[in-house]
């Protein structure tokens, strides 16, 4: 995934330094996989890889959406609740009309999420309220709505059409649909962020909101847009969740927000906006999922898992800061041509 890079005419050694963090994740991932495989070769079996990728797919879709919001110097804590609402919506929909094509289901899920995103974005934009507070509020509200609606009911795999469940497991050329979908989301978002003006404006807004306003960027509209993307992707992740797990209740996705933020932060997206890539965020998701799997396989006490994840987050942001400080120092030396 890291191979997707800019075809810059000439790349200075500095760019390499700046890429170090994503490289770090790849190396960490490689080491982890190597160690696990040595202790248990079946870790690299097709089934096992498929499982990890399926697990990553959902988290990665959420992380991509979150990255878009975080890049604009906002945050969306409501994604776990939105996922739950979307999953339950499509579950109910499929119970009632099992013949719906999967594509319609995907669109419905994303639309549910997008509506939540519009609410978040509008509150942030027009209410002039910090995103953290707004999305903490909608985290509760959306979850509450799902509980109201679902009550104690649970949608079981046998109530879902087999076509839909197949979508959760079936593969093309050995790659599961869910993973393909996640990759599609990742590539589209990644390309838009990297190669389209709108995408670059999101980075600009996060990097310096004031300068963005002076540069004539429609900051308000872009903010809402970013929340809509995050919401829609959370909704999409809800559909993937339903297809993958087949069992949906009102609690689906509870607590996901912190995992997602963790994946994004580990993936090198700065919490104060302006830098980082969705590739990094997806890698973060892959790393977190792989850690979970390999700790299970390595028979490391499962209780260590969370502690390791926490340590990793601290390590990632600490390394980020050190790299930034070093780069800044290096640039100062090179840049001082004013005698």
């Amino acid at each position: 995934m890291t191979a997707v890079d800019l075809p810059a005419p000439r790349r200075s050694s500095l760019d390499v330094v700046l890429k170090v963090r994503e490289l770090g994740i790849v190396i960490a991932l490689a080491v982890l996989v190597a160690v696990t495989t040595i202790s248990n070769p079946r870790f690299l079996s097709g089934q096992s890889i498929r499982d990890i990728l399926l697990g990553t797919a959902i988290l990665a879709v959420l992380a991509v959406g979150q990255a878009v919001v975080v890049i604009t110097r906002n945050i969306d804590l409501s994604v776990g609740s939105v996922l739950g609402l979307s999953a339950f919506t499509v579950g109910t929909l499929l119970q009632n009309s099992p013949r719906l094509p999967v594509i319609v289901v995907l669109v419905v899920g994303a639309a549910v999420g997008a509506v939540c995103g519009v609410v978040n974005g509008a509150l942030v934009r027009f209410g002039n309220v910090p995103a953290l507070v707004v999305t903490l509020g909608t985290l509760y509200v959306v979850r509450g709505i799902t509980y109201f609606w679902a009550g104690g009911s649970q949608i079981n795999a046998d109530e879902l059409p087999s076509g839909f469940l197949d979508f959760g497991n079936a593969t093309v050329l050995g790659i599961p649909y869910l993973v393909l979908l996640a990759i599609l989301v990742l590539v589209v978002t990644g390309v838009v962020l990297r190669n389209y003006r709108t995408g670059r404006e999101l980075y600009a807004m996060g990097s310096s909101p004031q300068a963005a306003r002076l540069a004539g960027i429609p900051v308000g509209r872009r903010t809402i847009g970013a929340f809509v993307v995050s919401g829609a992707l959370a909704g999409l992740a809800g559909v993937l969740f339903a297809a993958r797990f087949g069992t949906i209740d009102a609690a689906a996705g509870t607590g996901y927000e912190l995992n997602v933020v963790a994946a994004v932060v580990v993936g090198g997206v700065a919490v104060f906006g302006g830098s980082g890539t969705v590739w990094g965020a997806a890698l973060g998701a892959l790393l977190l999922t792989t850690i979970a799997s390999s700790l299970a396989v390595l028979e490391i006490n499962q209780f260590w898992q969370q502690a390791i994840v926490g340590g990793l987050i601290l390590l990632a942001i600490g390394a980020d800061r050190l790299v930034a400080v070093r780069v800044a120092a290096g640039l100062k030396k090179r840049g001082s041509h004013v005698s």
Partner: protein
Amino acid sequence: MSAELTEVRAARFLNWNVAIIALTVIVLIVAAATVDSFGTSQNFGFLVLDLLPIALVALPMTLVIVTGEIDLSVASTLGLSSAVMGYLWNANQPIESIIPLCLLLGAVLGAVNGLFVTVLGLPSLAVTIGTLALYRGLAFVVLGDSAVADFPAVYTDWVTGTIGGTSIPDVLIIIVVLAVVFGVVLHATPIGRAVFAVGAGEQAARFAGVRPGRLKFWLYVASGLISGLAGVLWTLRYSSARADNGAGLELAVVAAVLLGGVSIFGGKGALPGVIAGVVLLGSLQNALRLSDVSNEALNVVTGVLLIVSVLAPNLARSVLQRRRT
């Protein structure tokens, strides 16, 4: 000039701090009048016990947020403190030394947060999301998924007990004493003035001789210490030391603090408002539950209150401004 003055006066009237206290009082009165057995002294005792951890942790959290930072690791610190308490108890240590150790542990965990935030200059949101996972993970490492339950009755009874023949819970003393301490520190000491100054403008505070880094460090220590204490009290109250104790509490605490009128950007807020926020959330929950309203409704109420609490002052201000021009 006069328009400006009316605006200032109106802003004072719309002061969320006053509004939230008034709202809390109204909710308490309405609940006592309409909900059977809400007003009983026994229910008051239950209410206080339910509020205990949120009320305690909200105190230092208020100061942390007023400086413009945040601490999401509080619930995990509570959990780790509880787990270590269970572990040491199982290791046959005397409870009289376990409790101070757990408080110390909390302070150390807070100091770790403080170092990351002040020395490395990392954003506190990211740091404390990291330590949220780390501390909770360590709690599971220490105690696994088991529970330790056989704490001495003298201690557990004290936490669940009441003062004399009344039905005022003993722990209310702790809450009141600490609330007064934190309230006085925040509103009536030079430290409190510095806390507001750092939140309102770190650079200007530095120009006035305040050391923001040191201040924040000690606030994180206080936050950790109180979370450790909350862990001890939680363990004794339920007579159950578990690694997952208090999971998810951080969001409830942040919600209560923000509801209490503290600005997430720092520099604004008052402790009475926060106490009112805690009581409002807790008594609403209690009253709704007594009226057989589901947990679900409470989620929605909490979220809506939270959004309204930050939205209302902004909207009021912009409406006022529009009317002026």
